[in-house]
């Protein structure tokens, strides 16, 4: 088993390298074939001809595209993602800060989604067609169909403007972090502030996270609830559940231990994929909550045709998709021994 497991992972990783290489190639050529002038962007608003010519030299823009492609690949092999044409920062540095910001947000929102989605899903299956089921159906459908930016603004209105209990936007309050400077260890504010015992920043960062995390969680909550519910309804009619009832096992244990285990696999796939999707698809949520994340970075990079940055974001997204898929597959094996690798 162990050897097979190792072989399988190696096989998937090798496959992933080809997938990612393919994605890089396509994105590189597409983003470079579109008529644009990276040198113009590099030098600023009102450059001189000499400055543009110099920038062309520096960025190797005068050389054939295929040569530039190999330049890019070879520096990529050295772990260098290049320098962003728009921000003049190394792409890796830009991505790191954007990625940690987004990732912290997604982790919290998926956590909320999994907990709420599973509980709602299980109980609406158990109490099928009750008021609870109907309520969760309304919640799930609105979660999937409401525009996230609208929902986010409504939350801002209620919790910031009318109730005044939660902050409007941002990751942390400027003044709080100024009074209690935070040492960066992982880049996740919650984790860093906990490790360093910086409680005021922890509380403030948590407060800032609640609204965007709930906004972002609405969509996966809807999906998970519906999927868990339909699978649970099926599973609850199985013979082994009837046996469990006959043994007099307490209901909570039957639902959450015996039934859910068989019902959860599709929901987990949903979680995994929505994870990858929100990584760069959360642009609108990031915009209204002023979250300095990957979505915003990707959108601005695309708008200004900043190809090293576009490629950087693409690589992150591709790596995330590939590994999340692998991860979801492994989880399924772990949960359901009948599935073979």
């Amino acid at each position: 088993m162990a050897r097979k497991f190792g072989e399988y992972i190696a096989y998937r990783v090798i496959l992933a390298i080809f997938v990612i290489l393919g994605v890089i190639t396509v994105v590189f050529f597409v983003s470079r074939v579109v008529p644009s002038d990276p040198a113009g962007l590099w030098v600023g608003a009102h450059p001189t001809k000499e400055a543009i010519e110099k920038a062309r030299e520096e960025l190797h823009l005068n050389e054939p595209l295929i040569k530039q492609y190999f330049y890019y690949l070879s520096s990529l092999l050295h772990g260098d993602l290049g320098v962003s044409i728009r921000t003049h920062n190394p792409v890796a540095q830009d991505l790191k800060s954007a990625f940690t910001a987004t990732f912290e947000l997604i982790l919290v929102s998926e956590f909320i989604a999994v907990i709420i989605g599973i509980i709602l899903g299980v109980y609406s299956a158990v109490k099928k067609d009750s008021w609870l089921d109907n309520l969760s159906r309304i919640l799930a459908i609105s979660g999937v169909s409401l525009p996230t930016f609208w929902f986010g603004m409504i939350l801002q209105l209620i919790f910031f403007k009318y109730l005044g209990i939660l902050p409007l936007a941002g990751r942390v309050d400027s003044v709080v972090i100024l009074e209690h400077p935070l040492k960066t260890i992982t880049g996740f504010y919650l984790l860093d502030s906990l490790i360093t015992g910086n409680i005021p920043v922890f509380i403030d960062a948590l407060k800032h996270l609640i609204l965007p995390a709930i906004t972002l969680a609405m969509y996966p909550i809807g999906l998970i609830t519906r999927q868990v519910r339909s699978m649970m309804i099926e599973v609850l009619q199985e013979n082994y559940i009837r046996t469990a009832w006959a043994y007099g096992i307490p209901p909570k244990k039957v639902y959450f231990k015996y039934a859910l285990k068989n019902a959860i696999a599709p929901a987990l796939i949903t979680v995994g994929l929505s994870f990858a999707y929100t990584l760069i698809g959360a642009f609108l949520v990031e915009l209204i909550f002023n979250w300095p994340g990957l979505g915003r970075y990707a959108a601005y990079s695309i708008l200004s045709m900043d190809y090293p940055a576009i490629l950087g974001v693409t690589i992150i997204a591709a790596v995330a998709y590939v590994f999340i898929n692998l991860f979801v597959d492994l989880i399924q094996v772990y949960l359901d021994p009948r599935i073979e690798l």
Partner: protein
Amino acid sequence: MKKIVVRLFLMTLLVFGVIASGCIGGETTSTKQSTETSSSTTKTQVSNVVIYGYDSEMITLDPSIEFSNSIVTLANVYECLVKYTDKGLEPWLATSWESNDDGTEWIFHLREGVKFHTGNELTAEDVKWSVERTIRMGMGPAFIWDPVESIEVLDKYTIKFKLKYPANLPLIASSAYGAYIMDSKFLSQIGDDDAISNYLNKGHDAGTGPYMIAKYDPKTEIVFKKFDEYWGGWEENQFDTAIIKIIPDPALREQMVTSGEIHIAKSLPLDDIPQLQQNPDIVIKEEPSFRVLYGMLNTKKPPLNNKLVRKALSYATPYEDIVEYVLGGHGYVAKGPIPKGMMGYFEDLPTYTYDIEKAKQLLAEAGYPNGGLKLLLTYTQGDEAEGKVAELLKAEWQKLGIEVEIRPMNWEQQWALARSDPENAQDILLFYWWPTYPTPYDYLFNMFHCEEETLFNLCYYCNPEFDSLIDQAAVLEASDPQKAEQLYRQAIELLIDDAPAIFFYSPNYIYAIHKSVKGFKAYPAYPEVVFFYELRKA
């Protein structure tokens, strides 16, 4: 089950941690600097803070290179020799200056006792070093110093510039880009020009300005601390700490300034301005800008190579309606190519006004009595104002039988198209111009001087008479301003008659100021900069 959920969650976290550090791990050390500077100032008491909500991220922090919006940071930590205000040129780091008769030699007398943030004293050597570094690096704004032939330090506080040709050097020295004075003793220890650049871009500064950068996070916020030994001194009710907060969404900026979370916000949604003006917590400040919106007409391609057609379009543009509808009245109809507040703006200049009958007549004269023309108009994608102008033009020109195809493009693409063969390029291109430093020559030379290879002359206009007029005027700007102004006027009148561009409007900058802050003043020569030193607690 709870156990499984928790375990799943932890595993996910782990795997992602590995991915994150694996694919972007190479850079962990370089990003740390920005935060280390802040953690070194542990537990600072923040007694008073002013926060400016700004819409774009910072780019570079090297004064020799920066040619974009990071001047909102630079202008608070560095200073130029001269400041351009609504009263004209005023002393900044230089207290006075003089030139020889033909304006080829300039002497600046520096303010004495000015300290850099490092504690070093400002001397003429610093000025020489800063300007020479900018020229040597030859990046973005370096061209402003093109007239300079050599720089000579006369004594500790006196410096002489020898020029290759006459130029208005104090005006150049007031530029918002490329004219900041740096601490040469300190920076030259860092290493070569690129090493200094890298050092500065990590969030350091080496200026004389009233504030120092305390924390630099170009995507979220820049925190400034006051510099105690600033030469201008400090008053009781000024701000110890200032923050530029990057907030790209205008609606969010609006909410934050009305709730007092930030104190100054720029470019709010125009539709909301009347409502904000009623808000007792907010003061709306409207300040003229040096930006002008142009419609560059392709003078190399039929039908716009015909002057009569270009004139017809100039007459068929509803100037007043555009200012009303697009800017909500927050701006004014352009009088020729140069904005108010600068040499070369003439209140009594005869310009085109909306006259559809005249336009029809001119079009008939040109041989298109019923129109039947098709024109391609491009503008910068995402620029709401340009988009609205395009829509209005399309509707209006339909009356002349002219069909306009509107194509929004991102700026780099649009510019690349305009710089390709004029025969295949757009017919009309909408774009803004603003000067590097406030001289009419910056507008007229860049957009309308003959060009062998197209750069910003996106109407491909070439008129030797016009060129010689503005070239003469530029030389005389400092030594004989009256004569220069007269020459500029001749050139501009020529330009208006040739109609290579439509001059739409100059928009105002609109700032919303929370009532807790007063003393705000905008300077069009330093676009979008909030000089925190001038602010007071209300």
